[in-house]
């Protein structure tokens, strides 16, 4: 087990593409850190640099107290679980799990003992003599985990290890990985683009965009106190709704509608006060919106209902708000929503709104987020 320290790490491909810029942070011994970000943000590149599979253009990487910039992957004492699992297809499960121990030239009885132990922990004992080709996706994933844990390495690196599993198995395996990490207490870096994995598994989450670390914090802090509009929109599902608005005293003008902000908003965000009118980007989390006919609020707006998705426990309602929509800068989100730039609200399942209605939407004004329209940083 070890601490991992990244100091001004850069990765430049050729002489033009800057994939990682000045990545600096420490991962504490035994900590579970999640790398999250949109496609191409550099999260896998950062992980692969820590693994030693990508060279470091500049900066320092320390594992424990050792500078490992130019150390071979095999000598870094870290194990990695790949997205594709990368199991050796010609070897049995037993041979796959034993392989790193054989490479470390451990005595055979010790190898057997450790393989049996790993297989027992991961419930792979009945499958030890099978080849990976005869295993299900979940079992293959567990073999990949087994190959990592059997070594008792200083750190685990996991590159989207659950992305090839179906939704149900993903939930189950997510819990298993979290439990295993807590039990073993091994420093772990986990790359994902899945919101839920990021929020539920890690002690801390590092959000990357365009190769730049945006914020590294606990999941709760990322959600409650995002550093900028990108983090605010990226963390949480559905994403935070961002609109341009103007603030005049305690009145927030959202398009043609006016919301009176409670005093606690200004108490929490002193920088929000201004003498005259100022333009801001307002962020509304979907869970801070509801059907005003069921949950009345002092802050209400009118919006046209464009889509209703009943999920049982809640109803996701898409709303057209007459205010300038703001792009958070998440390329994946743009790809997903395309030109349909409507707000999304998580309404009570009792709501009776229908497509085409002009609904009264209750806002939890105390939970609104505010960002500078130029820099997109949070206003606190």
């Amino acid at each position, binding site marked *: 087990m070890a601490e991992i320290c990244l100091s001004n790490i850069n990765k430049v491909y050729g002489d033009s593409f800057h994939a990682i810029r000045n990545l600096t942070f420490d991962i504490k011994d035994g900590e579970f850190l999640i790398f999250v970000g949109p496609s191409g943000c550099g999260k896998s590149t950062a992980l692969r640099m820590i*693994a*030693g*599979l990508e060279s470091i253009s500049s900066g320092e990487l320390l594992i424990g107290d050792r500078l490992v910039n130019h150390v*071979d*992957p*095999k000598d870094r004492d*870290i*194990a*990695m679980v*790949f*997205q*594709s699992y*990368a*199991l*050796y*297809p*010609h070897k049995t499960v037993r041979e796959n799990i034993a*392989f*790193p121990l054989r*490479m*470390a030239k451990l005595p055979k009885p010790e190898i057997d003992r450790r393989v049996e132990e790993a297989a027992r922990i991961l419930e792979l004992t009945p499958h030890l003599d099978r080849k*990976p*080709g005869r295993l299900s996706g979940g079992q293959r994933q567990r073999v990949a985990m087994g*190959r990592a844990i059997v*070594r008792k390495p200083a750190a685990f690196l996991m590159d989207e290890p659950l992305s090839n599993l179906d939704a149900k198995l993903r939930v189950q395996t997510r819990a298993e990985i979290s439990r295993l990490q807590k039990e073993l207490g091994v420093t772990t870096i986990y790359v994902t683009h899945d919101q839920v994995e990021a929020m539920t598994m890690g002690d801390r989450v590092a959000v990357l965009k365009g190769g730049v670390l945006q914020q590294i914090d606990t999941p709760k802090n990322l959600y409650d106190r995002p550093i900028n509009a990108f983090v605010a929109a990226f963390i949480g599902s559905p994403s935070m709704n961002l609109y341009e608005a103007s603030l005049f005293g305690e009145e927030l003008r959202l398009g043609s509608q006016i919301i009176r902000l409670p005093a606690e908003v200004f108490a929490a965000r002193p920088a929000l006060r201004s003498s005259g009118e100022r333009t801001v980007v307002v962020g509304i989390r979907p869970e801070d919106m509801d059907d005003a006919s069921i949950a009345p609020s002092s802050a209400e707006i009118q919006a046209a209902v464009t889509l209703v998705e009943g999920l049982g426990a809640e109803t996701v309602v898409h709303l057209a708000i007459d205010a300038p929509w703001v792009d958070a800068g998440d390329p994946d989100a743009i790809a997903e929503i395309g030109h349909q730039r409507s707000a999304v609200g998580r309404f009570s399942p009792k709501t009776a709104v229908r497509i085409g209605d002009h609904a009264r939407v209750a806002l939890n004004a105390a939970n609104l987020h505010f960002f500078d329209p130029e820099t997109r940083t949070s206003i606190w």
Partner: protein
Amino acid sequence: MIERKKRDVGGTVINIFALLLVLSYAVPYVYLLMTALKPAADVQQIPPSFFPNRITLENFSTVLATPSLPAAFANSLMVAVLTTVLSLVLAVPAAYVATQYRRSFTTLFLLFALVTRMVPAVSLGVPLFTVLKSLGLLDTTLGLVLAHTSTAVPLALLLMSAFFEGLPKELEEAARMDGCTRFQAFVKIILPVMRSGIAVTALFSFIASWNEFLYALLLTSEKGKTAPIVIAEYNSVYGLAWGPMTAAAVLYSLPVILITLILQKQIIGGLTFGAVKG
């Protein structure tokens, strides 16, 4: 019910056509075998008959009594085996590096490697003759191995590149994370995983060298002669010995058939490599 019957009939017709097609490939070889089993008088009869009127092994006896043939068979075997080994040793790592560590010039490299396959073999014969003569390797097994390898490597490189294209890069990376150097990862993980592709490439290299005639004719004269040259000598200015020649050809084809049968599983695995996502 009627639909199902229609489907069954359709399937049967397709199967019959497929069988006929496969048999048509076998006809020349079966004719060779039949000729080898005919008595000398029947071989040149007009009109020719497909099946022998009487089966005899006299042609095989004649072949086995030919003094130059065992040495020629041994030469052929030695040349084909060494060519195959040398081609694989050169082409497999080269193809792996070319495909897995792709650079801007990789495609150019692979295309350039094919140059010897693009020009007629005979046009390379004279330069090869000159080079081998200057090295004192004319009429030697080693000389012919080098000549065959020069044409076998590009083919092996191309085949192995196609196989390696389907190989996930993560396999090597996982091995390196598990404690291997790049070379260990290649030897302990990549080569065993690629055994089907290697088997197919080895077989093609072996067959190409085993059957090769032109360079053997140009570059050998006595000691280094391979079986195809000796077999061809049954037809000479002194007479046309079709019977012994076909018998020798049948005997010469047996090792290839045997190897193909032994490697059948790997060959089918290799030919369908990457077709199904694992």
